């Protein structure tokens, strides 16, 4: 068994970001210019049947960063879920095998999260839509094809939402087991008052309880998506509290900041007080944008 407490003396957390749909060198360098460090994890989203662009892969690794793939089992255009029963019966095996081969080819660590935020009710693969049993079977099936393809450089992130929705849709029902997971990912946003159902919440209000639950499982944790809106509060104070809270949650080994305006103004627009604060907080040794560990399997 892994000892959960042993690695505490070397505390660190890797940086990471979602920059653009097809991030290239320019995006990575721009991030460094704006916030002082590169995003060590560069996140991209991938629909079912698609492959990451060669250019992105080349640029990300040329910058000493690593790819964090969010693999969504749906038709990305139509937002329609795939047939999960067909998946576990092997209908998509050749596509899965091809992606495994492509990622293995990279020969450096790649993070992969398949079917994220399943403990919500908005995605077609969420438990609320297909049930936990089918989800687990699908997840294990996909992972086993990667095992067959010997794509051992691919690290699996079991990525959940900060809140179970509805309340009984608990994330633990979807956990596929230690053989199938290398990291636990947690997504969470402060929507401020940008929506009729939302209210201003600090990083700790969003992540603390979920962290305490996830930390029970013997796996390191990644904040796999997070950011804050600026409506209804002070975004500068928010990011300051967030990056300080992470330092107290020792099992968090990386974060991915969602730095694009999408459903809300998630981006830390360069020049704003919030962006300067982010830059200030990333200074120092705790947040790393480059893997300096000799034993690379230990630290991503």
């Amino acid at each position, binding site marked *: *068994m892994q*000892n*959960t*407490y*042993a690695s505490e003396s070397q505390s660190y957390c890797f940086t990471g970001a979602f920059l653009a749909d097809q991030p290239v060198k320019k995006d990575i360098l721009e991030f460094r210019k704006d916030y002082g460090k590169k995003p060590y994890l560069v996140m991209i989203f991938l629909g079912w049947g698609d492959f990451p662009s060669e250019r992105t892969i080349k640029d990300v690794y040329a910058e000493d960063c690593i790819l964090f793939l969010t693999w969504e089992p749906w038709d990305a255009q139509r937002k329609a879920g795939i047939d999960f029963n067909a998946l576990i019966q092997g209908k998509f095996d050749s596509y899965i095998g091809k992606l495994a081969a492509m990622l293995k080819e990279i020969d450096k660590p790649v993070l992969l999260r398949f079917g994220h935020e399943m403990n919500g009710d908005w995605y077609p693969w969420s438990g609320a839509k297909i049930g*936990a*049993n089918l989800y*687990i079977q699908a997840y294990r099936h996909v992972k086993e094809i990667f095992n067959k393809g010997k794509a051992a450089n691919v690290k699996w992130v079991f990525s959940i939402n900060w809140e179970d929705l509805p309340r*009984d849709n*608990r994330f*633990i*029902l979807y*956990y*596929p*087991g*230690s*053989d199938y997971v290398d990291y636990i990912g947690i997504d969470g946003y402060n929507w401020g008052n940008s929506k009729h159902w939302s209210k201003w919440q600090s990083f700790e209000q969003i992540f*603390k*309880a*979920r962290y*305490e*639950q996830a930390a*029970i*499982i*013997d796996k390191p944790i990644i904040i796999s998506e997070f950011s804050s809106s600026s409506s209804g509060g002070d975004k500068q104070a928010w990011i300051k509290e967030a990056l300080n809270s992470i330092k107290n949650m*020792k099992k968090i080994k990386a974060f991915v900041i969602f730095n694009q305006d999408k459903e809300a103004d998630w981006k830390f627009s360069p020049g704003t007080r919030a962006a300067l604060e982010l830059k200030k907080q990333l200074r120092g040794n705790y947040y790393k944008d480059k893997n300096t560990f000799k034993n690379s399997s230990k630290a991503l």
Partner: protein
Amino acid sequence: MNKKLDLFAALAVLTIISIIVYVTARTILLFFVEYTLIESFFAVMLLLGEFFIILHTLGYVVNIARAGSGNKQVFSSGPTGLAEPSVAVLVAARHEPKEVLESTFITLYGLNYKNKTIYFLDDSSEDKYQKEAEELSKTYGLKLFRCRHRHGAKAGIINECLKTLNDKYVALFDADQNPLPDFLKVIIPLLEHDEKLGFIQTPQFYSNLDKGPIARGAAFQQAVFYEYICEGKSTGGSMFCCGTNVVFRRKALLDAGGLDESTVTEDFATSVKLHSRGWHSLYYNHVYAFGMGPESLTGYFKQQFRWALGTISVFKKMIWQLIRHPFSLSPAQWWEYFLSSSYYLIGVALLVMMLCPMVYLLFKVPSYFASPEIYFLVFLPYLILSMSVFYFLLRGRNYKIKDLFLGQLLGQITTTVYMHAALWALIGIRGKFAITEKTKAAAIPYIRLWPQILLIFFGFISVVWGLNRYIYEQEAAILVNSFWTLYNCLLLSSIFYFNREVK
């Protein structure tokens, strides 16, 4: 780390020395002071209460020292990859909500272990629940087991089912536990490795710790118990079974004659039998199941009452067994079982310790810290030392003082519930089996909290009276007693904070 260990060792030794000095001083004092009958009564009661708490503190320190400080234990297991021995997974339930059961069976179904059969032991008598049980069994491929004649509640139906099994191992889960997929894969090789192991117990974890102060306090109480006490007991060969998240060797269970049906804490009583018959037990301190703790004060009180009632009735039996078969357990096991089974008498001890300073303030019965010299020289250092050992060690495992304090507060307001359970157990009234209540509940009407409220009321009156006395008598002991009464009142008044409606 080593520095920390040294500091701990020094603290522990100091604590033990201060305990011994204190007890000796107190006892000598008792013999040399001339007391009236009523004064002697309170003095003896108090001394017994203190003895009790000191013994438990000592037991706790010993367990912590055994558990080692800082790092969790690591075990070697048998070779993996061999054929999986067969496991029967048993879940007994009576009138549980369908959603609760469904989550449990989803996670059992997801157990990453092929050679298993999941049994649903349906103890329901109402049609609605029986139908649901049949539906669930179909969906999740469960073997549905029912008893024709109900007896011995949960232990009864498990024993009936046990007769029909021939699997090598039997795993037990409460109806509200959600095991992680790796549970059997990790635990079975450990059992395969050691033929003498009768069972392996794993922790309970209340995952609903974000659902209000009761859930959080209860979760951290559990953490204190499972983090150190159990590890220490396991090292000393006296870890007892906690009824869920446990795997038995079927042979061992049969050897003990099945689960004990005579108490509401059948798990605890069964462990005594197993240990008496020479079986070993192991506590594996890694959480492999997510459960739910009580969220309302009603639910919490009911749970604590049941646990206290069950364990104290085993305590009575243990005394009999000690007299009749003193060699059935080793001295170390007797000591641990004495601690485990008497733990809930803490209600009586705490109540005495709350009442004595009040009695002193109101009626001048000099039992509690009547001589401030002894208090300041011995008791205070002892108190500070033992508290710092407690908090220091749990901090070492990343627990926060704030959370631990919440658990302690919750224990304080439950004093009278423990007292109630102790009375029932001593008279011999048996409780009913019910699983812990979790969901929605109204706040408890204040009239039903009369024991706590009376204590608070008389506590404040004593303080006011005491301070008036101090103006005229200028006696330091009055201040000390007033301070403790006020302290107890403040802790108790947290009941107004905890007692709220859960939606």
